[in-house]
């Protein structure tokens, strides 16, 4: 009967966490860009900023601004 040395196996979690930002996510984004043949959509922070800006400008137009 074999047993696992979990104290060493847990290191795999760290490897997985490092793999994503160093290799997998850049590859995924590059693949997405190649497949789409156009720039990637804006990031979540940019989308939120645009939404907030639109809300401010809508309020400006609604309350007397032109």
């Amino acid at each position, binding site marked *: 009967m074999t047993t696992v040395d979990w104290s060493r196996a847990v290191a795999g979690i760290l490897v997985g966490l490092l793999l994503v930002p160093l290799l997998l996510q850049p590859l995924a984004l590059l693949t997405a860009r190649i497949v789409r043949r156009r720039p990637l959509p804006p990031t979540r922070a940019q989308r*939120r900023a645009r939404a907030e800006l639109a809300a401010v*400008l809508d309020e400006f137009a609604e*309350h007397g601004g032109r």
Partner: protein
Amino acid sequence: MRWGGEGPAGAVPGRASRVQGADADEGERMDATTRAAMILAGVTAVVVLTLALLHRFTDLPLWPRRRRPAERPVVDWSSAPDLPAYDYAVLYELAARRRDALGRAVRCAREAGLPLPEDGLDTAFERRTGQPYDRRAEEGVDLADVAAVLEVTRIGMRSLACLTQGSTLVLDPPCYFNPLHERGTERIPYPPDAFSAPDPEGHDGDQGEDEEDHGVAACAACAAGPAEPLLVWTREGTFPYYRMESGTKAVYQTSGYGAAVPEWDADDLLTAFVEWHVFDQYDENGALKENAS
């Protein structure tokens, strides 16, 4: 008894065979551990990558949202604000709200990647309007300053709106006599008792003749009947803002907040309104004076 030799049936195996068995178990444990580590690494990578891509391309809430910020008060952006009285405290509060709203809009525009100039409106305003409200400063010159903030923030917001829509900003000048009136849709002759408006960008020429040629913008009420100027209190008395003597002859005063200078574009106006110490700091050649602040 021989070492490692065979003993009677059912006897404990020898030392060498015990060592070999331990090595085999150790190898199997390493392989199992390695397999487990690889499985954990793979599962972790898949889960984290999925979350990262969902965060990048979607708006799905991936973690508990922070508490929604309190609702901000609505800002009155109309040309003629609906205020019960044009007193300093009321106008200051409105100017502060407009300044904060414009600052927030400029910050959002930068985060959204819109092409804004490096020295944005918010930084310029903070240099000038960042002071807290001080009742001891309730003087005429500050009321005129506050009116300038109201006008300039409005120009800034219209500029941002045009930037997001891809349209060209067309300035609508205020009423020369009172920038808090309706917009200056009419043209009347230049008031004879008003100061002239030197141009900070050096467009001066025969300025007096130019001013008399194009006149000043005025709202319909001021153009039709006796004008109701924005009065500011000074120690010498109460005067229309364009007749107020002050140490700093602010350009926004002498230009009527843009109503007397139709040839200026938005950049000229904002430069004049924000750098309103320009005439005290620079000499005739445009060099900074020694005693300039």
